[in-house]
């Protein structure tokens, strides 16, 4: 490979240009490491703690696998398939149904959520460092100033990893993903040994409702929400996979089975020890050596995980002209400025994080539903790359000056529908919840609403290229890998 080709490939990793086959980094195995490491971070323990509020250990695992399986399959079908097929990131893809300005509006909202994750995880790494120091010295260290300084250092490491990008994600997770999987299994065994597996299996939920079916549904709903909430992090890395299969299945392995393993540990810790914060239970359960090792591994997984979060959101920022012209270090640096400032409020954010999580839950169902309808139903799996990169009113995907008001209406009303079915912050629900769940209800609503309104308004007004899409040359291949149309629309064998 010549130096020039190498540089072009490296550039593509940090830009929104389509990534060609020769520039792709991830095989099935490498991407599996990346996704397993990404999934097995502290979010699993937090979700596990939430599930333990409503159901016991066995039911939590059933709900976690079922909810994540359904949600992750739907989510990756909507995001990963177009991303890997065209070599483009998710934030470029959503321009096909949100419009190029609608995408930017969504980015502002997502940037708040993603920055919050980076702050909270950096803060948790800081807490881990203090827990390890306390374990070794036997002295309780609880200083906000020290926590903030350590949190800033952790955020600095996140920035470094995000700047280095996908190649470093792969290297780090090849080391830490297997270690974490082994440590999680060891942790469950140790919990079983210390407390007894029968005690774990019989442990009652912390704060259940009277109705067991509703308890299960809430656990299922939380798992659906967790599965959908990977959405902002999809596409950016999937476009670097060498085959569709290599981009698809590792998500099932990592985001469903890997995440469920971490969730199981979180549920066990919450039920038996009463905390979901790994700094509070890893050393007491694992002892100083195993506990410290586990905290270091989880800390590294957290840093890599939020570096992947930062990488994806910063790729999205490149939708803005001013960001596009900046080099990668500056783009990520600007995002990290928000994180560094937020780190001074990390304690408050950490204590009220459930509010941000709750709000985030309402956002993803309508977006994923519209992406499915747009790509599979309206566009028959054909995207016009030229229109995706055309940021003026001359492109097919400009809708109304870059805003698709139909999609924006469905998005906002979908979020309201979710909220009406279940208030994710206070966990109150309407009677509809037990038939559809909130994520299910909002998704079904958005699927139907976008389909009907799309046909009635967008197709009739010929907006977004829906009415008379130019298919010339944009359909790459059919399911058998055969070319269906070339640029002139003629059948052509590869």
């Amino acid at each position, binding site marked *: 490979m010549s130096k020039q080709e190498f540089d*072009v490939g490296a*550039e*593509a990793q940090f*830009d929104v*240009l*389509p990534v*060609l*086959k*020769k520039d*792709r980094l991830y095989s099935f195995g490498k991407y599996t490491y990346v996704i397993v490491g990404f999934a097995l971070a502290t979010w699993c323990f937090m979700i596990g703690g939430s599930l333990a509020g409503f159901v016991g250990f066995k*039911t939590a695992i*059933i*709900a976690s*696998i*079922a*909810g994540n*399986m*359904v949600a992750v*399959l739907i989510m990756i*079908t909507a995001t990963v*398939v177009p991303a*890997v*097929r*065209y*070599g483009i990131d998710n934030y470029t893809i959503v321009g096909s149904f949100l419009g190029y300005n609608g995408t930017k509006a969504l980015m502002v909202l997502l940037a708040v959520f993603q920055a919050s994750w980076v702050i909270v995880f950096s803060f948790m790494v800081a807490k881990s460092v203090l827990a390890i120091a306390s374990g070794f010295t036997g002295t309780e260290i609880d200083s906000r100033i020290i926590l903030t300084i350590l949190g800033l250092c952790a955020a600095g490491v996140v920035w470094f990893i995000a700047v280095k990008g996908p190649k470093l994600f792969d290297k780090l997770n090849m080391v830490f993903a297997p270690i974490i999987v082994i440590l999680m299994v060891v942790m469950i065994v140790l919990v079983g040994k210390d407390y007894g597996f029968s005690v774990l299996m019989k442990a009652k939920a912390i704060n259940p409702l009277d109705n067991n*079916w509703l308890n299960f549904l809430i656990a*299922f709903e939380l798992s659906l929400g967790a599965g959908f909430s990977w959405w902002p992090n999809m596409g950016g890395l999937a476009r670097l*996979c*060498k*085959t*569709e*299969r290599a981009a*698809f*299945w590792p998500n*099932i392995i990592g985001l*469903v089975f890997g995440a469920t393993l971490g969730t199981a540990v979180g549920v066990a810790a919450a039920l038996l020890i009463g905390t979901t914060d790994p700094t509070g239970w890893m050393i007491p359960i694992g002892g100083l050596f195993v506990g410290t090792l586990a905290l270091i591994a989880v800390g590294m997984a957290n840093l890599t995980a939020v570096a992947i979060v930062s990488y994806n959101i910063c790729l999205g920022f490149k939708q*803005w002209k001013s960001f*596009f*012209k900046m080099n990668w270090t500056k783009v990520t640096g600007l995002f990290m400025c928000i994180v560094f400032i937020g780190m001074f409020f990390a304690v408050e954010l950490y204590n009220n994080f459930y509010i941000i999580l709750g709000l985030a839950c309402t956002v993803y169902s309508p977006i994923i539903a519209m992406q499915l309808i747009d790509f599979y139903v309206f566009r028959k799996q054909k995207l016009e*790359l*030229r229109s995706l*990169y*055309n*940021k*003026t009113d*001359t*492109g097919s995907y400009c809708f109304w000056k870059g805003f698709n008001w139909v999609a924006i209406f469905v998005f906002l009303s979908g979020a309201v529908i979710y909220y009406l079915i279940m208030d994710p912050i206070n966990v109150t629900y309407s009677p509809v919840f037990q038939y559809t769940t909130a994520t299910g209800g909002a998704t079904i609503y958005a699927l139907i609403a976008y389909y009907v309104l799309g046909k009635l308004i967008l197709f009739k007004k010929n907006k977004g290229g829906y009415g008379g899409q130019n298919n010339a*040359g*944009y359909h*790459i*291949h*059919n*399911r*058998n*890998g055969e*070319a269906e149309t*070339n*640029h002139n629309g003629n059948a*052509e064998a*590869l």
Partner: protein
Amino acid sequence: MGSQIEDIRAELHGRTGMSEEIEKDLFKRIAEIEECRSMIKPMTKVDLISGLAFALLLGVLPVVLVGLGIW
């Protein structure tokens, strides 16, 4: 491929928000993808059937079994 790139350039030049140098690279990449020269291996029917089976067996069935009180 040259004419393809020219065609893309005529349609997109100055409309992408990118500098001229990056636009050139973008046009080359779009042309390669449009001409199916950068095609990646798609999923097979086995993948699709397996995905559906996973969804039904590990996604839907457990909910039904819990709902019926079997689990």
